[in-house]
């Protein structure tokens, strides 16, 4: 006997098209102020991003991963979360982190070679995770803890298309399915893992369908449509909180910039492709929508840009005027209590600094 045991389909959601026209039947109920909030958060993300790139070029900050073009995939999910929910970012979610309340100067500090940038209290956002995909099981475990502790909290974790090829992704999604965990997996499929295109990450037609193998729903959304990323996340968070388990959301977007400031994407990708995606810009299309609704004007834009510029400039000032960390910090946080070895090593370092000072030598 031969028969079909399973068939599947993958849903796609777009609400706001690239010309700024919304499918009103799918539009969430949002007041004017809320629509503006979506726009303003994306603009904050864009201005922050441009500033960070400039700081890096000027040697005032370290290697940075730009979010340009991915503002809707950053902001929609962040605004769909409730205050008590937790966000586990990868490393291309600055606008999401900022929208959730992480200060811009903390992020500048992180990218600016200072661990104190990870110490952001009173915001339910975990620090950036660089190694790719390794943060996904943390989110599953965190969601598991919330479930076992009977807390009505959803956990949302970000990762890229490259991460879906790794084992941590598979093991975390599998666990989440088996234990029906209240977690939302958000894949920012920006088509590129440094130089490797999406087609070389997986032979699957969509990344969203990977969820089906783990026994829960996956959806692909237009990742440059902030309403779509918002609605899909809102639904996923509701599912999580109602005890209906995980969801995988594939935000189909595009990395407009180089992988990081240490990369040159011109070496491996076609400028024509980038130009095509420029037309799908998430901020531009929301602006067109708002203009048609009478929510956007030149003066509004000017005021917003001015205000955002000021906010970012102030963050830069705070970042650059922060006193340097103490060398004790390097030792202090390795364990809850410093071990005898660390105490000895700290003492040695301090003494060594003093000795080189007194002999006129530099420590490095």
């Amino acid at each position, binding site marked *: 006997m031969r028969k079909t045991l399973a068939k599947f389909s993958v849903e796609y959601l777009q609400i706001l098209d690239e010309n700024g026209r919304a499918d009103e039947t799918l539009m969430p109920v949002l007041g004017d102020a809320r629509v503006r909030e979506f726009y303003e958060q994306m603009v904050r993300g864009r201005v922050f991003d441009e500033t960070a790139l400039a700081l890096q070029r000027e040697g005032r900050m370290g290697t940075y991963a730009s979010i340009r073009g991915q503002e809707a995939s950053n902001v929609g999910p962040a605004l769909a979360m409730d205050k008590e929910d937790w966000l586990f970012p990868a490393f291309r979610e600055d606008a999401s982190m900022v929208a959730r309340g992480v200060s811009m100067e903390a992020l500048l500090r992180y990218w600016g070679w200072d661990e104190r940038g990870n110490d952001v209290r009173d915001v339910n956002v975990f*620090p950036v995770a660089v190694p790719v995909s390794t943060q996904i099981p*943390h989110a*599953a475990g965190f*969601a598991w803890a919330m479930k076992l*502790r009977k807390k009505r909290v959803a956990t949302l974790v970000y990762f890229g298309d490259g991460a879906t090829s790794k084992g*941590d992704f598979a093991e975390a999604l*599998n*666990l989440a399915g088996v234990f029906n965990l209240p977690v939302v997996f958000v894949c920012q499929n920006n088509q590129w893992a440094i130089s490797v295109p999406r087609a070389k990450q997986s032979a699957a037609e969509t990344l969203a369908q990977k969820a089906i193998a783990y026994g829960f729903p996956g959806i692909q959304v237009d990742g440059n449509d902030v309403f779509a990323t918002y609605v899909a996340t809102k639904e996923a968070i509701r599912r999580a909180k109602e005890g209906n388990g995980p969801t995988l959301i594939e935000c189909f977007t595009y990395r407009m910039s180089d992988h990081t400031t240490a990369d040159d994407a011109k070496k491996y990708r076609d400028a024509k492709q980038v130009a095509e995606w420029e037309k799908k810009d998430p901020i531009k299309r929301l602006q067109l929508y708002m203009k048609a609704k009478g929510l956007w004007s030149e003066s509004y834009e000017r005021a917003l840009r001015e205000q955002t510029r000021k906010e970012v400039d102030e963050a830069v000032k705070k970042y650059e005027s922060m006193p340097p960390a103490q060398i004790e*910090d390097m030792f202090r946080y390795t*364990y809850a209590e410093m071990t005898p070895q660390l105490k000895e090593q700290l003492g040695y370092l301090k003494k060594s600094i003093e000795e080189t000072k007194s002999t006129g030598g530099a420590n490095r």
Partner: protein
Amino acid sequence: MVPIAKLTIVEAINAALRQEMERDASVVVLGEDVGRDGGVFRATDGLWEKFGDERVIDTPLAETGIIGASIGLALGGLKPVCEAQFDGFATPMLDQLINHASRIRWRSRGRFSCPLVLRFPYGGGIRALEHHSDSPETYYAHTPGLKVVVPSGPYDAKGLLASAIRDPDPVIFMEPKRVYRAIREEVPEEEYTVPLGQARVLQEGSDVTVIAWGAMVRECREALALTSYSIELIDLRTLSPMDTKTLVESVKKTGRAVIVQEAPRNCSVSAEVAAVLSREAFTSLRAPIKRVTGFDTVIPYPRMENYYIADEKRIAKEIDKVMKY
């Protein structure tokens, strides 16, 4: 009268888990076959029946997922005690341990911490399949932010595991599977802990200090019977952070040191012990520090593993050479 039972190491571990789970509702046990089956070595026997499947969790076969989710569980306010079934199967967990568990407190400047315990049976001598006989303590001991604990007997196994579970930092708890059931000791039924970071002088002596941990402590005890020297035998117990004070004090007294380990030699824990002793007890040394270790090969399949793991005769011989230097 305090009730005392004669327990094996594996029974003592089971008792510690039961004790800590009764004491602290946030302790959860997870791993492959740890629930209904009670673990392949029965270390978690009876826990699932007592605490239910929300606290004793049979996971899918996924070591990275187990340790990665344990990190998340710890961040979320629980105390996960996860199990890797064998030393060789804990290897995929290294990524999560090195890149995340060990440095969460450090990189968040104390905002987050990761109080988890990873337990696994280690070492050779049980005629197991390949990948079931490794002694990988060096990888963990080399990683800043992890603590590494290796008990050698039942009393310490219970007390050290209780301390590991209560510790605010991630602890790797390596269980000497070769002696899981080979040693019986009096173990109090009441609650007690043995502090981490403290070596234990098992026998005082004045001629030579013998330092070992885990399963090799038994071989060392047997070696003592083959020599007529006055030997100070030290069980290191915690490999990181290491109790160098006890080691140095002992070698300053004896002037000689023999370090015995099962793991391969190159860049191993015995090398760190030797370096500490040569720095801190240099002027007291009457002979070069001797290391008796596994070889810098893969531990052989059972037909040849007896050549690899130093036995009491080899250890006694090396002690004799150090004495006659």
